[in-house]
């Protein structure tokens, strides 16, 4: 059965796209799943950039405008992940996000996971994307503004009867007591805490997800644990030494 997961936040700049790129590449490369990652931010897209490309001849915007078939807008990342990018040009922003559900229903038959890198805020575009998903992962930073927006997003998801798979606290150096407080405040499970580290920034420069290009760094070790939470399966090829180091992270 296909899992359609939206990656949301409320506040912008918390790391949704980085989470989507890493999760998608890991589900495909490490876990061997068929995965499609969709840049559902049709007005301010950058998933492609995180994965090494930003100039696409056909995009999701063309599909939502009825100018192209979804099969024309799928691209293969070397990890095995398939990407449906959005346009980076202003002339394409009038795409109709309400057609998203149809695109996903069409893909769902063949893939194990569909990941949607959703826009920030609870705009019409975001709410259309929420209608198309089954469950959500909410990304936040340990700052009041981001937490407040995460709380609003979670409340909205619950009102719409969408499953909240959990929260990722990103770019964070927080103590376990603070994590417990955030969990209580957001009333949602915490999938993991990804520490702030320049390996993440450097991976974007290298256009390869950090979990693969800097696989032994702290954020990667933390992200592997997030992957175990999301999939319910042990991270493949995560050696005993890495697991022991992980206990002290």
């Amino acid at each position, binding site marked *: 059965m296909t899992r359609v997961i939206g990656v949301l936040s409320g506040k912008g700049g918390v790391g949704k796209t980085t989470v989507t790129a890493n999760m998608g590449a890991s589900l495909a*490369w490490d876990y061997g799943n*068929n995965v*499609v990652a969709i840049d559902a931010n049709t007005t301010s897209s950058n998933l*492609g950039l995180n*994965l*090494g*490309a*930003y*100039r*696409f*001849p*056909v995009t999701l915007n063309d599909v939502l405008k009825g*100018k*192209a*078939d*979804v*099969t*024309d807008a*799928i*691209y*293969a*990342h*070397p*990890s*095995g992940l*398939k*990407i449906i990018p959005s346009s*980076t*040009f202003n002339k394409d922003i009038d795409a109709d996000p309400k057609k998203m559900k149809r695109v996903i229903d*069409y*893909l769902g*038959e*063949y*893939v194990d996971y569909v990941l949607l890198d959703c826009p920030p805020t609870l705009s019409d575009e975001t709410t259309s994307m929420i209608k198309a998903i089954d469950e959500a992962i909410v990304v936040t930073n340990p700052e009041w503004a981001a937490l407040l927006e995460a709380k609003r997003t979670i409340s909205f998801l619950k009102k719409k009867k969408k499953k909240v798979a959990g929260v990722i606290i990103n770019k964070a150096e927080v103590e376990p007591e603070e994590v417990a407080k955030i969990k209580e405040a957001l009333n949602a499970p915490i999938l993991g805490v990804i520490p702030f580290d320049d390996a993440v920034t450097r991976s974007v420069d*290298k*256009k*390869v997800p950090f979990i*693969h*290009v800097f696989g032994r760094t702290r954020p990667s070790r933390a992200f592997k644990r997030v992957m175990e939470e999301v999939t319910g399966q042990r991270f493949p090829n995560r050696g005993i030494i890495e697991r022991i180091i992980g206990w002290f992270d």
Partner: protein
Amino acid sequence: MDFDSFLEEATRKVKKKKLKKRSLSSKKRKEELENILLDDECEAVPQTDSGRRVYG
């Protein structure tokens, strides 16, 4: 690549692919989608040197 070069490259007009008007049967469309999603029969994202080292 420095930021100016990146900006120039990223904002340069993209040549849109000429799409043929297709009236595929749903069976054909399904076959096409299956080939893309399961057998990678679609355009590839360009590989970087780092990507090549990681993914081969």
